[in-house]
């Protein structure tokens, strides 16, 4: 109660400072408080915030408590005895280190490949070509499909005997390889398929950014006699940096969530040597092996990893005045 009163006092004080002598309008303090922007706008953002906040922030807090228990999926979790044993087990689990390494490789290679290929596609489509929109629609098409759907296609593409990938490299006298069964190849094969699905997304982001570059800059560069390559390197690409930042944030988050794709392409929870990432390990521990508390601990590790992306993103958005 005291805190509520303190809050109302502070609100009043803020109000007074801002309206600067607003008492002259003859309204009572309560009335002015009711009229304040915060109170007036709260019915709009309050309910969505409560719903979202419960399922996101409260759930993460709850997840943290679960990770301190020994809960194994049966009955109620025991919140009486909390300890760090799951985190300790995590450090000692070699599978955890492999999953972390694979996650980082996936993040870095996938994000860079998408940024690069997306840039190439955007530069190609930035020319005046016929059927420009059709090309763009086709390149972005895989992005509109579910991970579960695209994983079926790629499972078929990577099939050892009948798959197109082996048939194709066979023309050059290579292979056949067991793409999804070979621990040395599987991560690369998965990343390739994910880049197929997401490079169109990066292209769209770049195309929008390219369109917003004022055309007089091109003119100026042309008058200076800059070649197309030089123009891209010196004039255009530097201005794409903000687009690059926001695209890579989203790509990293997609890579962290690549669970759906891996689940579908390998047909279930089974661990895959060479392609086990934190997201798959987390779901397998919790839902496949009923190690719920341990799964929650991995979930916290995954959340911390995603914070490393969210925080810089929010900071740049704040600096650009977008918040």
């Amino acid at each position, binding site marked *: 109660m005291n805190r509520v009163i303190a809050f109302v006092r502070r609100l009043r004080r803020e109000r007074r400072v801002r309206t600067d002598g607003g008492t002259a309008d003859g309204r009572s303090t309560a009335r002015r408080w009711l009229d304040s922007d915060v109170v007036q706008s709260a019915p709009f953002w309050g*309910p969505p*915030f409560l*719903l979202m906040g419960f399922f996101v922030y409260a759930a993460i807090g*709850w997840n943290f408590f679960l990770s301190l228990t020994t809960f194994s999926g049966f009955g109620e979790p025991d919140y009486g005895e909390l300890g760090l044993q799951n985190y300790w087990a995590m450090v000692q689990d070699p599978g955890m280190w492999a999953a972390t390494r694979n996650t980082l490789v996936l993040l870095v290679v996938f994000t860079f490949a998408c940024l690069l290929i997306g840039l190439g596609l955007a530069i190609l489509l930035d*020319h005046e070509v016929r059927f420009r929109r059709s090309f763009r629609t086709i390149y972005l098409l895989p992005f509109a499909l*579910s991970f*579960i759907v695209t994983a079926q296609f790629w*499972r*078929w593409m990577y099939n050892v005997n009948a798959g197109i990938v082996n048939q194709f490299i066979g023309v050059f006298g290579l292979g056949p390889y067991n793409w999804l069964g070979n621990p040395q190849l599987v991560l690369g094969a998965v990343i390739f398929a994910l880049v197929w699905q997401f490079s169109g997304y990066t292209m769209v982001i770049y195309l929008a950014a390219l369109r917003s570059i004022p055309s007089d800059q091109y003119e100026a560069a042309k008058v200076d006699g800059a070649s*197309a390559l030089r123009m891209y390197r010196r004039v255009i690409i530097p201005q794409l940096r903000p687009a690059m930042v926001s695209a890579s944030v989203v790509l990293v988050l997609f890579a962290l969530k690549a669970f759906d794709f891996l689940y579908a392409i390998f047909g279930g929870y089974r661990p895959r040597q060479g392609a086990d990432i934190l997201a798959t390990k987390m779901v397998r521990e919790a839902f496949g092996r009923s190690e719920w508390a341990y799964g929650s601990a991995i979930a916290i590790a995954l959340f911390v990893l995603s914070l490393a992306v969210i925080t810089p993103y929010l900071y740049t958005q704040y600096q650009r005045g977008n918040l």
Partner: protein
Amino acid sequence: MSGESVSTERHTDDRTTLAGVGLRRVGLYATLVGLVTFYLIPIESGLVTSIKTSEALINTQPFAPPGPGGVTLEKWAFAFDALGRGMVNSLLFTIPSTILCAILGSMAAYGLTLVDWRGQVAVFALFIAGIFIPYQAVIVPLTQFWSQYAMLEYRLGLILTARYATILELIITHTAYGIPICTLLFRSQYKTMSWEMIEAARLDGASVWRIYKRIVLPLSIPMFAVVFIFQFTQIWNEFLFSLTIIGSVTDPAASATLILSGLGEALEGVDYPLRMAGALLTALPTLFVYLLFADKFAEGVQI
């Protein structure tokens, strides 16, 4: 993006000869068409595989057409049988949650654009951060919550068949996790809206609700279209919530993506033609929406 072509004059080098320009054009189109093959071949290969008879499947290349007499729709019929119920279930939760999170997102964005108080940045940051939460970080408490909620529902005497009870849970979950992205999309529009008009309306004594209903909502109809298309695709394509909240492929509330993930899987191998038919069937609603509204979809992608 919407068709506004950027002038190419700037890219053509004045010194190159006409023949040189022609060659470059040919190279450009060859690259673009080659890329079309790359982006379409997995889907095309799925399509031809799904309509081949078993002989045609063995005797033809995986991406080649089946040839005369090699076409059968048998696998599509099987896939339709297996997935029909899942498709209906997916629609039953996708449509309401798409509508709900669009409305709630628009309200939140309006509320946050309206105020200019100190905590506003923090509240909006919390909204946006919600976009980037990996679902794995919440999935265990979420299943815990829904299992406890089921008990509560039972005690309250709320009678829903198991199927609709699960679908209600999915609607609430998808709405809650869709709010952040919807809020961001609407706010990017509301920030650029003409606030003089709204200030004028406020001075004339219109309430915030009235302004929302009469001015802001009508202005945001194009944005609603973008958000609907984007969210419909996202929620239809979602898998992890289906897997953990519904739990089993045989559940009466199983979604299309969940059923697809186990379709035609047997000990001796996978029935690929059936899988391909199922995958394409599952993709049909989003493909349809995407191909009809590609421009609006691309707009929604640009967060």
